[in-house]
């Protein structure tokens, strides 16, 4: 077993030495470092300009984490998407395959190396993250959950990239396909969700029973209602409503929503989420709520019972959170399964002695 990890470690080292020492990597990491710094500074000044408090650094923190996820998912396919077929083109895959390293060790080693390189972009943004932490206002569990999910999501993209580079012959195609997978998860799920919600529509019937203010005598100075409340004829309106509650599951596969939903949200005294995690998670949570297809707003009956709110009920975001289900683990599970399948496929495809070869490729 030690021997297995020894060889695996050698492959990881080999990959890292090839990639981390490259100028392109240094430039990219520096760019990320500077960009995250600029974004942090701008966010900080814009919030303090609006008279925000220290607690708002939770908002800055969550925004930076999303920014790192964005940068990470944009850069990782380029790092990992040609790991195997690029080596085959360069003639270095076969010379590794004839050593005692198995195809499993080669593919996993390349994956671990690509993941490590992706994480260096997270490391480059650590100074900015530390700054928001020192400023306070970021709860420990939010920190742990968001960083954990971010690290895993970068691993998923690295695995998909390495996996596709083993399954697709041409490096260019595998890199592009990896980008398409990332785009499908990040943007495609949003499009599918929106279009799906609009495609499934239901007729909503709203009944409103108002108060006839033209009769009933004087107005009560306290409640504002007439002394003698007379109801109007019920007003019935029907119109189509999109059924996002049927398709909200699609959003579960979105990495940004997984990240937002996984991080525990802190609420202010009005029940509103305090950071970007909460704001985005609220979106997917609200989508779970099915619209009331037969809503009756009986202002008249409510007034008779002395309710001055006019039968309008209002749910705070916190209440919505409390009565809906979290979905991040489903999304994360989908991603991990996708990553594992890609890697398993690549291992099977690079196994030697090779039976069938991808068309148009040479072994060595």
């Amino acid at each position, binding site marked *: 077993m030690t021997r297995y990890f020894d060889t695996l470690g050698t492959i990881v080292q080999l990959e890292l030495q090839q990639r981390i020492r490259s100028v392109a990597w240094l430039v990219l990491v520096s760019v990320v470092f500077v960009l995250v710094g600029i974004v942090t500074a701008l966010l900080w000044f814009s919030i303090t300009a609006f008279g925000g408090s220290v607690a708002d650094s939770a908002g800055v923190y969550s925004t930076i984490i999303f920014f790192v996820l964005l940068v990470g998912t944009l850069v990782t396919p380029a790092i990992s998407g040609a790991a195997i077929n690029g080596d085959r083109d360069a003639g270095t895959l076969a*010379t590794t395959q*004839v050593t005692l*390293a198995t195809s499993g060790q080669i593919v996993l080693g390349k994956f671990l190396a690509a993941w490590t390189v992706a994480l260096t972009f997270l490391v480059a943004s650590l100074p900015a993250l530390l700054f928001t932490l020192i400023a306070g206002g970021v709860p420990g569990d939010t920190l742990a959950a968001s960083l954990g999910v971010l690290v895993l999501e970068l691993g998923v993209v690295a695995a998909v990239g390495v996996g596709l580079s083993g399954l697709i012959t041409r490096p260019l195609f595998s890199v592009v396909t990896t980008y398409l997978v990332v785009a499908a998860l990040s943007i495609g799920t949003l499009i599918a969700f929106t279009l799906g919600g609009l495609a499934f529509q239901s007729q909503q019937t709203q009944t409103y029973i108002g108060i006839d203010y033209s009769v009933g005598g004087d107005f009560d100075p306290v409640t504002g209602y007439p002394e003698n409340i007379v109801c109007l004829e019920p007003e019935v309106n029907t119109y189509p409503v999109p059924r996002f509650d049927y398709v909200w599951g699609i959003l579960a596969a979105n990495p940004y929503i997984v990240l937002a939903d996984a991080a525990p949200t802190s609420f202010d005294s009005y029940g509103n989420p305090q950071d970007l995690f909460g704001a985005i998670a609220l979106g997917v949570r609200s989508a779970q709520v099915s619209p009331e297809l037969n809503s009756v707003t009986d202002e008249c009956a409510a007034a008779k019972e002395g309710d001055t709110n006019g039968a309008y009920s209002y749910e705070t975001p916190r209440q919505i959170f409390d009565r809906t289900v979290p979905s991040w683990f489903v999304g994360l599970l989908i991603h991990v399964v996708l990553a594992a399948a890609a890697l398993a496929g690549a291992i099977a495809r690079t196994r030697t*002695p090779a039976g069938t070869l991808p068309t148009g490729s040479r072994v060595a």
Partner: protein
Amino acid sequence: MSASAVIEVESVARSFGDVHAVRDASFTVNAGSVTALIGPNGSGKTTLMLMLATLLRPDSGTIRIAGHDPVSDPRAVRSAMGWMPDVLGSWGTISVRRTLEITGRLYERTQTQSRERAQQLIELVGLDELAEQPTRVLSRGQKQRLSLARALVHEPSVLLLDEPASGLDPAARVELRTLVRRLASEGVAVLVSSHVLAELDEMADSAVYLERGVTASDERIEASRAQSRDWRIRAVDPAALAAALKKLRIAASPPDHLGTAVSVAGEAEAAQLLAKLVGAGVAISAFGPAVGDFEHTFLDLSRTTTEGGPR
């Protein structure tokens, strides 16, 4: 099969879709010998090498390398076999020394073993001055040497060299030949493919001829060896040589700058001819086969094949 056969190939075939790269290859290579793998471009040499190197699965037939089957036990074969591919690939940003060290580690050698072996090999292939340079700065010939060193990292008992001499300068070719002969004398079984047949003549003990994926049988090789072939004779006085040949009733080609070519069947007859010519007082300055053994056989075999002879 003899007990010392380290590479045993029997009726091996491999196709890629409709392309039958190797149809029927059978041969053996003994320990301590150098065998040339000879065939025209596209005759399946590299495909055969890849099957021996545990990278390709044969469609049918059996292969044994150091007693192991590359399909069922690639690990055992890999620890006994060193392969130098015809494609020159190297980890561009990594130094020559690190390349060899990493390869050693991938063969499950310890850090210290890998480091020592890397130093030995750097000296062996003469890359001392470039040892700390990244491999992308190496020339083609230097990459060939690195590739050879990489194949030797784990001290294999079977060595597969696919076009090892291409890109090497004459001095390096001589070094390669010496090295290969030395490895053979240490008991390594070497299979080497090349286009440069003259070079194989000097390096190899025996040859396997591959034509359209089929190895030529021993009988056919014997038959073509026995055929009369051209010998080249150069004399100090070409006129005297021409006269002597005419007297001996031997048909000769018109002389060119290399001398005169005559058709001779076998070495015994050649020796007799030389004796007669010397006896006749012709001052002979050069006397030898016009083409090397391998080239003669190769050309003869490919001629009979293209003429529709038995395949």
